[in-house]
């Protein structure tokens, strides 16, 4: 990865290119440890700084309650970047498996100062807001306005046990002399594309936070503890409930703690209205011996190594952050507001030397890296979708172009079909016009079948008329009325026959027989568009001679007149077309 340029100096597009470069060339968008708090990482390197050099170094891994500690060689504060890179590479190799990140936690036990807050007697409602102000703009809230934020780092530390009129908290002050050292470590992490998060803790504050683990050695009445380091001591005053009332630091001179430290403690206890508190000493220096401890009458020396909770081989401060667990049902000292606050608000594990704003602003935040990641995924999915869509469209296009229908661009003309349809219509019209509507020979055949025995009748006259019938002017066809009238003489046998056939049913049978013989469909009687009416009129033949006459008219007893009317409506197939054929 090329050297990063602060985004304020870049155009919007260049900023995006720089962010995309980080997304592509680093693990920032995949490994959330780049943005995690150092104390939350699984693999940690704890360094104990007392005096001019790091005196102790341990690595730890594993969960909070099952941390494995291994003592390692301590790096030099004066080490070059190359030496530090080499050291950190060695440290990475010390962990089981391949660590995905590393936390470098520097415990500062070489200095400890307390700055007074302005209006320190008025406890504000929102300590977090005040804490932010102490961190970012300490000149505005500290008693001493001449302080230099470039050289010093301030963090608020509240005193929950302070009574009305007493100081509610102080600003713990640490110099920034190790800031570049930690930045160098972070830079190495970036060049290695390996998340290295740093954190600088105040060793006395972490030791203070670990006190609940020593609760069995502490009383249930007001007490004070002196945390002793090589170059200074920190005195903490507690109420009977275990709440912190005040912190004070005492600088050591050559030869250890000043001899009047006992008097100081008595004076302060009196000022804090803590009558004769029990005094404890917690020796935490890795350099001094018991003879260097201040002589305090009646003081009890706490031995944290006796506590089962602590690993006696590992410095107390290293194990301090892990002791700050939020227990739902805390008991004893851990239940006091002071230690609950330390567990919940992390007052004792505040990072005194975090990355500067400029350093943080150099890289996109986790949210932006996620956006880049999701955007990249969306772009890839979209590109794949686009490619698939275009491929499918291409295949579909080839299929369509090769389809016969695609190349069918000629005009569709119905004219030819209309001409053919009109030809057919013309044929049908002529067919209808020339239909077998009425035939003379068929009518004669009908008469022949009406009188099967020629000897029994004499026909005088046979008439057949066909006439059209227009019921409605708008009809396209006219009905037909066909009428047969037959007159003559008949004997009784013929008369009986005529009586039988002179019904619709009887005449229908005769029509059926004639139709069968002639094949002429005009005699069909099974169509609903046709009706058949028969009328027979008989009368006595006055010229009849029962004993037998000479003339034919004298041999038949009856005159008859048979009238057959077939009515065919306009809906019938042989109805007459009214419209002319063009």
């Amino acid at each position, binding site marked *: 990865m090329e050297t990063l340029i602060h985004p304020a100096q870049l155009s919007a597009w260049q900023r995006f290119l720089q962010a995309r470069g980080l997304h592509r060339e680093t693990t920032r968008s995949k490994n959330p440890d780049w943005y995690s708090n150092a104390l939350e990482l699984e693999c940690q390197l704890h360094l104990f700084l007392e005096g001019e050099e790091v005196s102790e170094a341990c690595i730890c891994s594993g969960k909070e309650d099952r941390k494995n500690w291994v003592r390692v060689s301590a790096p030099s504060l004066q080490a070059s970047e190359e030496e530090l890179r080499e050291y950190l590479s060695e440290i990475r190799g010390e962990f089981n498996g391949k660590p995905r990140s590393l936390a470098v936690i520097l415990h500062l036990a070489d200095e400890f100062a307390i700055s007074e807050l302005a209006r320190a007697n008025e406890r504000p409602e929102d300590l977090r807001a005040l804490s932010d102000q102490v961190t970012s703009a300490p000149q505005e809230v500290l008693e001493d306005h001449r302080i230099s934020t470039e050289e010093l780092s301030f963090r608020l530390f509240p005193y929950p046990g302070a009574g009305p009129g007493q100081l509610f908290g102080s600003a713990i002050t640490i110099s920034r002399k190790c800031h570049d050292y930690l930045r160098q470590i972070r830079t190495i992490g970036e060049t290695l594309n390996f998340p290295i998060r740093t954190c600088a803790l105040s060793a006395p504050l972490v030791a203070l936070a670990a006190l609940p683990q020593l609760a069995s050695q502490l009383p249930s009445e007001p007490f004070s503890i002196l945390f002793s380091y090589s170059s200074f001591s920190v005195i903490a005053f507690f109420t009977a409930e275990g709440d912190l009332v005040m912190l004070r630091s005492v600088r050591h001179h050559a030869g250890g703690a000043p001899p009047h430290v006992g008097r100081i403690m008595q004076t302060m206890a009196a000022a804090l209205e803590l009558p004769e508190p029990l005094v404890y000493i917690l020796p935490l220096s890795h350099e001094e011996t018991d003879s260097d401890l201040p002589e305090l009458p009646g003081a009890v020396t706490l031995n944290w190594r006796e506590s089962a909770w602590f690993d006696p081989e590992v410095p107390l401060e290293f194990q301090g952050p892990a002791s700050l667990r939020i227990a739902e049902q805390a008991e004893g000292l851990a239940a006091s507001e002071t230690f609950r606050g330390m567990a919940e608000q992390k007052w004792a594990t505040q990072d005194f030397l975090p990355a500067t704003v400029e350093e943080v602003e150099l890289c996109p935040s986790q949210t932006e890296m996620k956006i880049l990641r999701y955007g990249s995924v969306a772009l890839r999915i979209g590109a794949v979708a686009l490619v698939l869509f275009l491929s499918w469209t291409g295949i579909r296009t080839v299929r369509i172009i090769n389809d016969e229908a695609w190349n069918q661009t000629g005009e569709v003309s119905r004219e030819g079909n209309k001409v053919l349809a009109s030809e057919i219509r013309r044929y049908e019209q002529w067919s209808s*016009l020339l239909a077998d509507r*009425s035939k003379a*020979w068929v009518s*004669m055949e009908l008469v022949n079948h009406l009188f099967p025995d020629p000897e029994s009748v004499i026909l005088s006259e046979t008439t057949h008329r066909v006439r059209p019938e227009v019921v409605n002017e708008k009809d396209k066809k*006219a009905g037909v009325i066909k009428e047969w009238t037959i007159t003559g003489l008949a004997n009784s046998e013929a008369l009986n026959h005529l009586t039988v056939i002179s019904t619709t049913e009887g005449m229908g049978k005769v029509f059926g027989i004639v139709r069968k013989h002639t094949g002429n469909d005009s005699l069909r009687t099974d169509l609903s568009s046709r009706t058949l009416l028969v009328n027979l009129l008989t009368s006595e033949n006055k010229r009849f001679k029962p004993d037998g006459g000479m003339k034919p008219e004298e041999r038949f007893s009856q005159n008859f007149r048979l009238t057959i009317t077939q009515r065919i409506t306009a809906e019938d197939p042989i109805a007459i077309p009214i419209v002319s054929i063009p």
Partner: protein
Amino acid sequence: MNPHYKESVIVFGLVAPVLLVVIGLGLGVHFQGKMENTYEARRNHHQTFKILEREREALEQNVQSQAPHMHRWMALFEQPAATTVNTFFREFQNEFDATHFQQTAFRPTSTAGGIGGASKQPSSQLHFSFRGTFRALQTAFLELETRMPQLQLDSIKLSRASNQNVLNANVVYTTWQKQ
């Protein structure tokens, strides 16, 4: 979020790619849809063309099967019906003895009447009188009406002649004419 990167990352890292893909897909869908619409129209056009072609084939088959009838029918109108009928009866009369079949009268009219009177199709009436036996008359009418389907019988009257063996027949035909 880092305020220095926020906008450029959102714009170029998320909005632009999504927009690019959406525009790409949108254009693709648009042009693909356009092509599909054109194809659909051409396919409908093609289907119509095919349907009309099938219809035309069916119509042509019909016309072809009807053509002989139409030609025969149209041939009927090449000569005046009266002439054709007279020629027919003259030839028919030659085959029979005068006592069996004889045309006794013929009167054509130029006006429509009977069946033809109901239609706008041009027609005229032909009046005939015959004398003959039942069988000779029926045979004559059978042959005539089979040869000339344009003849529609308006009326026929059969009565006994003075000679007991023959009948008098008065026949009126409507004959259709072409326009």
